[in-house]
């Protein structure tokens, strides 16, 4: 097993629900309540030392009980290794801890996830839409139930074909 994953498994007896390594990428899945604690460990532990935030992303799995998956990817400039941190969020309570206090760059990246997928981040300093207009009310475009052709007033365009894609 990847040494980083081994270390995480040893440190956290509860809260870590999945460890995976595929194509050289190490990924750790944690429960939502342990997220901030694990992230803090990744940031501050001298063996981990993940000082660089690569991206924040989210995946929609509409058939699952916990519908959304939020993904953070970190890199350590000094140690030169990377890790992916994942957590699952149910649709009914779509909130997850923000990591902006640990990585400043998480600010814009988490705003984008909120804008595109509708996942809220607790303790985020400025959680607003970032790419869509502020007054956009037609939902969250990257969710799987959002049609590719768009929603709302676009539906009234008669030159678009009627077949839903």
């Amino acid at each position: 097993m990847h040494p980083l994953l081994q270390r995480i498994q040893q440190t956290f007896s509860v809260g870590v629900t999945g460890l995976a390594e595929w194509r050289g990428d190490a990924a750790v899945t944690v429960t939502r309540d342990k997220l901030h604690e694990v992230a803090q460990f990744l940031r501050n532990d001298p063996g981990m030392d993940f000082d660089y935030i690569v991206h924040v992303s989210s995946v929609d799995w509409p058939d699952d009980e916990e519908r959304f998956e939020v993904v953070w990817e970190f890199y350590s400039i000094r140690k030169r290794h990377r890790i992916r941190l994942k957590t699952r969020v149910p649709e009914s309570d779509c909130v997850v801890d923000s990591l902006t206090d640990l990585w400043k760059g998480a600010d814009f990246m988490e705003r984008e996830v909120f804008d595109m997928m509708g996942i809220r981040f607790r303790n985020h300093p400025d959680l607003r839409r970032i790419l869509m207009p502020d007054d956009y009310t037609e939902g969250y475009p990257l969710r799987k139930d959002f049609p590719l052709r768009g929603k709302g007033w676009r539906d009234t365009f008669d030159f678009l074909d009627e077949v839903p894609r």
Partner: protein
Amino acid sequence: MAFEDQRTTVYKVNPEHPESETLPTLRTEELLLNMGPQHPSTHGVLKVILELEGERLVKSTPVMGYLHRGVEKLAEDGTYHQFIPHTDRLDYVCAMYNNFAYCRAVEKLLNLQVPERAEYLRTIVAEVQRIIGHQFWLSAQALDIGAMTVFFYCFRDREILLDWFDELCGARLTTSWYRIGGVERDLTPSLIDKLNQFLDYFPPKIDEYQVFLEKNRIWLGRTKGVAVISAEDAVSFGLSGPVLRGSGVDYDLRKYEPYSAYPKCEFSVPVGKNGDTYDRYWIRVMELYESVKIIRQCLEQMQEGPVMADVPSVTLPPKERVFTNLEAMIQQFKLFSQGFDAPPGEVYCGTEAHKGELGFYIVSTGGGKPYRLKIRAPSFIHMGAFDHMARGYMISDACTIFGTYDIVMGECDR
């Protein structure tokens, strides 16, 4: 009338000069100024709401998304091959590098080996694209600051390379030349000749660009000590490329996680000291020399061989065979109509584009289309640090800071 009243009643205390407490000052209030979305130096359609105290920036709030086209959503609807032309439209100034980054991510997903000659060709063209990107950046940055001549000189040389691209793939900007598993076609002898000529012609021209700026008092005054960011902050913000290296962090994926033909080439990564706009300028100019070096080495080391991996279930057949051979035509048709069957899993693959780390995070559940595709666009992430870097500088420096990121809104908004 009202103005007179406030003038006598509002006092401003300056902590550095306590004696000013007794002096009445003019009424001050913060001024909100909308810069953009239509502004020549915002490099596209970007609005920034500037809160000003006099001419100083107190806070700036970028308002983005004017160029949001939902590229990530479109990716979920098409096959892996069909997404390559979409990547051209991300950073439309440097399409080749987007193709490269995307193809690398898909190859990592498929665990596909690219033939050696294709790796060299990819590196050569990527470095040519880096030269174009830095020339474009230099001309735009100098123009923003007020130096017009550099723009003409850079564009004169950029034109040579764009014509070279035209001969290579039939397009100057939206190139789509990289393919999953290799490249679309080999370099012809004429292209290699032209590239060699350019490599001899270009280094003196880089010196020429510098002559305009190196001792130009206006340029130095407007770049030295402007938009300083410390190494620690730059790393925490997730900045990458020359913007991060300007602060003294030598993070370059070509060295940190070597890919393609980079490990076989000798080159150095210029690193700045002060983290200001001048250091970022210096790094980009030095990278022009390094790119020339890399291209030369690749041209020398490159051996004959195939330019596309031979995995018929994934890679496209050569065009001439598509027109003459039935099986090849069926293969081409099936790959474009259904796509190939990617294994379920998820990968992230970052590539060092000239702006910074351009990464693709692909989630596959099997089948011909990506389930989710996330683009880690350096321009977007750099905008996250705009407020931090602009605080305390003048309004006119806002243009310098857009420029120093080398921002392209097509990539920022996706």
